[in-house]
Structures are given as structure tokens and as C-alpha cells.
């Protein structure tokens, strides 16, 4: 029971009664196998909800046409504002996290987005970020690492965010303007996306990688298209060495060769393994499991489902010291509280607002590192207070866009200690003695009704940890 709860608290956005029953009946391994084939999962409920977000599956080009930036003095048709696609993909993220049956896919979409972070609401990324999330990341989140890396490298969102779209061979334009390389993407490609900061690459490696990637850019705005484009005329031809490997001049193919090489380096395997084990097991991850995940990465060519199976079926994952070893990020905290209480999102838009005060507004992380999920990064004094106020607002059914009914957890209208126990049981967490004692006391002596008790239970250490 605790084992299943632990597994679901890491592999999903929070255990629900239904998911606990599923895992109990099928066992962890076969439930995991189903999750790793999300295309076979019946997800009609959330798909219906996503139907209310018309921009969601449009390409960047379609978004550009459907949601144009208004000319000066014009105002856009209602529902056609240029920022709406970004808003809608944010709403979709909440709905998918709350309702999707393919939970592990959503967890991995979130993980890879932070690994391949872009800042959403700026410039052309108002249009490029939604398909980056829904197609580039989500469609490849359970595929292979080399493919995912290549897709991000060719995505307008990444090319824009890390400036590679401007990177050019040394040249002087007819107006006298001098063009040249921009190192930003080449550096983060090695530091954050593949090899890791301590891998030992040099400044020369970065410059060579940047030269290889010159010409990897975005269609010009006047074409009315927004897509990846390789421009031969600004590409710097030449044979370059990057991280010990020589890449012959082959136009765009040279960049693909380099990315494929970086994707499968042992240093990349180590870096990705460290991040995955830290995300799923503990901030201070066990090194033996990292080694196993790294070995599997190299043996399978970066097959993401194999990496996840290695983690979730490992002995280390279930070690007692790793139970509740992590603190929930704002997104996980909020969604898991909805899932545990059976609360519904009626309108996702107003629900985006609280993430500002929780410190991690969706898709708005400015530095390329993405949001951290480490304990000290997710829980400050003000954030804890915001969480305590948020659960209270929610439990009293005053959070716009969310509906929470305590009777779901207390169908028999219990009171006193029975009420406290029923609610704690309903929320599925195994509570420590001290916490349970205070929750019972709140019910019995402090006059807390079911709503106040639910609010309190959702900010117990037992629920904040996972």
C-alpha cells in the first residue's frame, strides 16, 4: 500500500483513489508498461476538456495566422488575442496534469520542458511555445533522447530563446552591418542539454559547435510561416572538432551529426541519469542507481521508457529513506491536492494566477536551467504561507475556477475524530503520528469543520512531502 502510494506520488501528479486501485490490481510493473504506451490509453475525458481550447493543436504557422498581433490602433477580435495560444497551452497543462490517464507522459513532459527550458511569453515564442510543448516535447517525452534533443534543436522556440536563429558566419551585410556567431545555444546545448557542466568541454568546443550550427534558424516573418529553416548562405562551412570528434563540412547534416554524437556520449548519459534519478528518487540521488540508468542509456541509445523502468523497478527507489524524501513543486502540490480531494477544474484560466505567488509561474522561467525541484528551491516562507492560504481558499470553494466538495471525502457526514480520520484516510497519505494527532485535535477541540480540516491536511508535512 505505502509502496504503491510512493510509486504513484512520483510517477503521477498525485495518487487518486482510482489510480491506487488500478496499481493494486495490476501491480506496478504492468501499470508502468501501460503508462509507457500512452497512445493505447483511453483518455477521452481530458480530450473532451481540451476541446474547449481551439488553439491547442495548431502549428506555429497556423497560430501566427489565426492570432495575429493587432496593427496599431486595432483591437483583436475577442478570443483571437495574440497571447491566447500561450494562455491556452498553460490551461491545457493544468487540465492534463489533473485529468489525464497518461500521467507519466505529463510528468515527463514537465521534466523535459524544464530540461529544455524556454521562456514562453515573449516575441515569437507566444506562437512557438505552444507547439513546442504539445508537439516537440510531449510527443517525444517517452521516445528516445537523441530524437527529443534533435527536435528541440530544430524548434523555433529554442532557436529563438537561445538566439541561434541569429547566429551566422562572419560576414558584412550590404548596409555595413557585421554578422557572426552567437554562442548562446551552443553553450547550453553542451552544458544543460547534453554533456553537463563538468564534462570537460572547452571554449573552443563551444565556438566550433556554434559555427557548425550557423544557419539553423527560423523562417522570416514576412513569409507568413513560422518554422525551422536552414540557411546555407549564412552557414559557416568547414571541418570542426567538437569534444574530441571531427565533423566534416556537410551543410545542415554536419549539425545533425554533431547533435547525434553529443546525444549519446557517456557524459550525456551520466548527466541525464543524474537528473532523472534526482527528480524521481531524491535531491541527493543514490549513485549506484545513477550508474545503472547511465548503463541502460548507453545500451539502449537513450530509450526513455527503459530509463524510467530502470528507476521505478529498482530496489533503491523503494528504500525507506527515499519515501517522502522530496518536497512538491508548486505544480505538483496544487494538482496533487485536486487529485487527492477529487476537486475539479471548471475553468483553468483563473487557476494560473496562484502560481505566481507560489514562485513558479508556468513556462515563465527566465534562466535556461528551468525550474528547480530541489527542496530549498521550492519552499520559502512566503511560498508556504501562499500554499496555506491557497488550500484554505480552495477548501472553502472560493478559488475561482475550482470546485471542491468536502462531501466527496465525507459522504457519511461524520464529526469529531471520526471526521478527521475519514478525511485523512480519504486523502490517502500515511500520516505521521504527530500530524494525525493535531488534525484530530483540530476537529475535536478547535472547532474545525470539514473544509478547514481538508485545508489543513493539504498543508501537513505529510502531504507537502512526496
Amino acid at each position, binding site marked *: 500500500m505505502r509502496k504503491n502510494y510512493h510509486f504513484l506520488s512520483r510517477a503521477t501528479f498525485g495518487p487518486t483513489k482510482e489510480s491506487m486501485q488500478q496499481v493494486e490490481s495490476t501491480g506496478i510493473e504492468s501499470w508502468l508498461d501501460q503508462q509507457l504506451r500512452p497512445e493505447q490509453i483511453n483518455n477521452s475525458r481530458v480530450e473532451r476538456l481540451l476541446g474547449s481550447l481551439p488553439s491547442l493543436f495548431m502549428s506555429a504557422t497556423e497560430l501566427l495566422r489565426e492570432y495575429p498581433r493587432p496593427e496599431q490602433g486595432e483591437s483583436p477580435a475577442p478570443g483571437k488575442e495574440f497571447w491566447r495560444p500561450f494562455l491556452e497551452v498553460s490551461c491545457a497543462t493544468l487540465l492534463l496534469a489533473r485529468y489525464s490517464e497518461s500521467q507519466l507522459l505529463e510528468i515527463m513532459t514537465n521534466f523535459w520542458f524544464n530540461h529544455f527550458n524556454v521562456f514562453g511569453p515573449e516575441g515569437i515564442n507566444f506562437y512557438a511555445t505552444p507547439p513546442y510543448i504539445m508537439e516537440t516535447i510531449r510527443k517525444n517525452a517517452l521516445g528516445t533522447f537523441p530524437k527529443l534533443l534533435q527536435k528541440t534543436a530544430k524548434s523555433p522556440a529554442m532557436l529563438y530563446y537561445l538566439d541561434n536563429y*541569429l547566429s551566422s558566419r562572419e560576414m558584412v551585410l550590404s548596409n555595413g552591418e557585421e554578422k557572426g556567431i552567437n554562442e548562446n545555444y551552443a553553450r547550453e546545448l553542451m552544458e544543460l542539454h547534453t554533456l553537463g557542466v563538468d564534462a570537460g568541454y572547452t571554449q573552443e568546443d563551444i565556438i566550433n559547435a556554434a559555427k557548425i550550427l550557423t544557419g539553423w534558424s527560423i523562417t522570416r516573418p514576412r513569409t507568413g510561416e513560422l518554422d525551422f529553416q536552414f540557411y546555407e548562405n549564412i552557414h559557416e562551412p568547414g571541418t570542426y572538432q567538437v569534444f574530441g570528434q571531427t565533423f566534416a563540412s556537410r551543410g545542415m547534416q554536419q549539425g545533425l551529426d554533431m547533435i547525434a554524437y553529443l546525444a549519446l556520449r557517456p557524459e550525456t548519459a551520466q548527466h541525464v541519469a543524474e537528473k532523472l534519478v534526482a527528480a524521481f528518487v531524491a535531491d541527493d540521488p543514490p549513485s549506484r542507481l545513477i550508474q545503472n540508468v547511465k548503463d541502460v542509456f548507453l545500451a539502449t541509445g537513450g530509450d526513455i521508457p527503459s530509463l524510467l523502468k530502470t528507476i521505478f523497478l529498482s530496489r533503491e527507489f523503494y528504500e525507506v529513506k527515499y519515501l517522502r524524501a522530496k518536497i512538491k513543486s508548486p505544480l505538483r502540490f496544487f494538482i496533487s491536492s485536486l487529485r487527492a480531494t477529487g476537486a475539479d477544474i471548471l475553468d483553468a484560466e483563473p487557476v494560473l494566477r496562484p502560481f505566481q505567488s507560489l514562485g513558479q509561474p508556468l513556462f515563465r522561467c527566465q534562466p535556461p536551467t528551468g525550474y528547480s525541484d530541489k527542496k530549498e528551491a521550492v519552499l520559502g*516562507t512566503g511560498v508556504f504561507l501562499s500554499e496555506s492560504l491557497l488550500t484554505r481558499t480552495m477548501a472553502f470553494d472560493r478559488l475561482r475556477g475550482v470546485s471542491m466538495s468536502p462531501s466527496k471525502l465525507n459522504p457519511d457526514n461524520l464529526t469529531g475524530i471520526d471526521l478527521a480520520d475519514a478525511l485523512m484516510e480519504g486523502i490517502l497519505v500515511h500520516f505521521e503520528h504527530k500530524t494525525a494527532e493535531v488534525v484530530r485535535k483540530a476537529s475535536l477541540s478547535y472547532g474545525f469543520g470539514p473544509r478547514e480540516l481538508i485545508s489543513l491536511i493539504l498543508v501537513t*508535512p505529510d502531504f507537502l512531502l512526496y
Partner: protein
Amino acid sequence: MKRREFLKKSSQALGSLPFVTGIFKSAGASVTSTTNGSSPILIALFLRGGADGLNIVVPYGDPGYSGLRPTIGISAPGTQGGALDLDGFFGLHPKLPAFKSFYDQGKMAMVHACGSPSETRSHFDAMDLMEGGSGTVKLDDGWLNRYLQTSIPSQDIFHAVSIGPAVVRSLSGIASSIAISNLDILHMSGSNRMKTYLDAIKEMNAERQDIIGYTARSMLEAIEIGQDKLDPDAYVPENGADYQEDEFSSQLKILAQMIKADVGLHVATVDLGGWDTHTNQGGGESGALANALDILNPGIEALITDLGNQAERTLILIMTEFGRTARQNGSGGTDHGHGTVLFVIGQKINGGRVYGQWPGLAEKNLYQGRDLAVTTDFRQLFGEVLEHHMNCAEIHSVFPDYDHTNNTPVGLF
């Protein structure tokens, strides 16, 4: 040996420290402040992203400068969009008029060609080292936290504050600190029912020795003081201070309110982003850097103005993880570099000077042929700030891999 291996070995030698925060703080702290209205205050402002020292404090007198930056260079003083002259060699970016006036009043000093001995050009690594207060070895706690560990433990919940969602790296460690983004939430929690609710949270965390336990207790104490002394709606800036509407200015306003309310603030951190100017950096009049400075300059101006004579005890140290390439890149910006400029604003410093040995911008003087070299280790400056402004007698334990006794002081105190 690779650094990672070295670090593993050294952390084994030290024994691995678990993340325990706030063990110095007893539960149920006293409500009275242990500091008084004259205790020194340090505000550490981190410009995140690597601010371009060469276009912020412009060495227009260096013969190499303008050639390195044909389209984004700041022109000499007296020209359209030109620098604000400081000393005939350096000039300030024209978007920093308030800085210029603090400089002229002797209340601001810069240390140029300052930075880290590490050659890293990774944001993450460079911030990690600067906030850790070390040269190349990674330390578990932050330099400001180690300073707090050497100073008298305080009972004040607002003794050490990160303005933001989480305690930043420089302030994290076993000495207690809190993180808060706004004061409004302290006031949303006023009713009696709410108090009972928050007390229940406190009760269940009373004995927890982990980050949740500490954060829960600190939250209750912050509310208790905040309710009484930190009502943001009642706060009126003084001396005609004009805070802009942006987030940075509102964060500085929180600091001003905390300082004036005398809630025991001793060390505070604030962050400002927008400095990673790889493209469209622009020159003196517009562009990404001008935009970032347009947030920085009025924010600091409003804070100092508002503080009035409280500015006497307040020192602002402005830092950034590295500078940027001396040459502009191929897209009108600059890439990650090395040396840069750091600022100190305080009423009692020997201000009105640009400190540090200028390494020059000739090709042969550039670090690795591309960046401004570092001639002053940032730890030299940080140490002097702690020693002279905060009266810290143990800077060697704050900066364990730096020897202040064998280095020439910057000399701004």
C-alpha cells in the same frame, strides 16, 4: 583530476552536511528586536545573467574599447547617447543618472575588472561559486549564511531575508533566514479563525527538524511581526521617493519598509534579471541593456531616497556572475565572458572612485584573448564589505579558500 572527483573527495573528507536550516533559532522567538536602529544592514543585489561591465562602467578612455564594439559601444561623454563621465577614463551608461549622482556625492564606488578566478562561463556554475563565496571549490552553504554563522545569533525572524520565492544560494545554510515576495500575504491572514488555522500548522511542525518544520515556524513568526509592523497598504515612501510599478522597485520598497519598521533586518538579498544580452544589446539609448538599466537605476534611486538617514547604516553590494565578451558578437550582443564591474553604495565608503587595476583591452591583455581580465577577486571585495561595514572579525571562515591577509585591499573603506 576532474573537478567533480575532487569535490566528491573533499566532501567525503568534510563529511556530508545534511540540509538543515535554522538550527540557531529557538522555537518561539521573542518578539522584541535584538538589533536597534543603528545596526548595519547589507543588501546583496544579484544581477542574474552576467551583466556587461564594459557597457555599464564604460572604459571610453581605453584605446581598444570602441573597436571592440563597433555598433553597441557607448560613445564618449558629451556626445548623443554618450557615457556620463566619471573620471576622464570611465563613464557610466547614460541610463544610470542616479548612479552618477551617488558617485558624485561620494556614496558609490565601483570595482572594475572584478570577478572570479574560475574560468567558467556557465551561468549556473559561476553563480554557484560566487554565491558560495569560493574560487573553484563548491561549498555547501552560501557566503552570507557563513557570515551569519560567525555573527551573534538573532531572534529576529526578519534578520536575514531573501526577497523572492526561495532563499537564494548565497543566504542558504544552517543559519536561519526566510524568503518572502510580498508583504500582502502577511495581512491576508488576519482573522481569528485564520489564526487558529495557522496555529494548528505551527503545532504539527513544532518539533520537526527539517526545512518544512523550520519554514512553518518562521512563517508564523513572520506573520506575528508583519501584522503589527509591516502593513504594505499603510506604507508611505518618504523624501519624495518615486518607486516605479515594476517588480524590482516593489521589492526594494519592501526592504525600505522593513528597514524603517526596525524589524531587525540585517542581511537581505534581491535579484534582478535581464542581463544575458546575447542579442540586441544596444548602445546608450535603447536595447536590452538600456532596458535592464532602466529598471535598476530608478529602483535604487527610490530606495536610497526613501531610506533617508536610514541609508547611513545600509550598504548595497551589486554583483553579477561574470562579465561578457569584450568584442560584440555577430548578433549585436555579447556572449559570456569573465571580468566585470561590481558596485558598492554606502554613505560611509570612500566613494566617487572606480577601484581596481585596469588590465586594458588590447588583444594581449584580454583573458583568453576575448574577455576583460579579472584583477580583483570578488572575495576580496565581499570580505572588505563584511569586515568594515558588518564588523565581521572572521572573514577567513566566510571565505575559506581565499586569503585576505596576503592580498592588497580594494580600499573603499
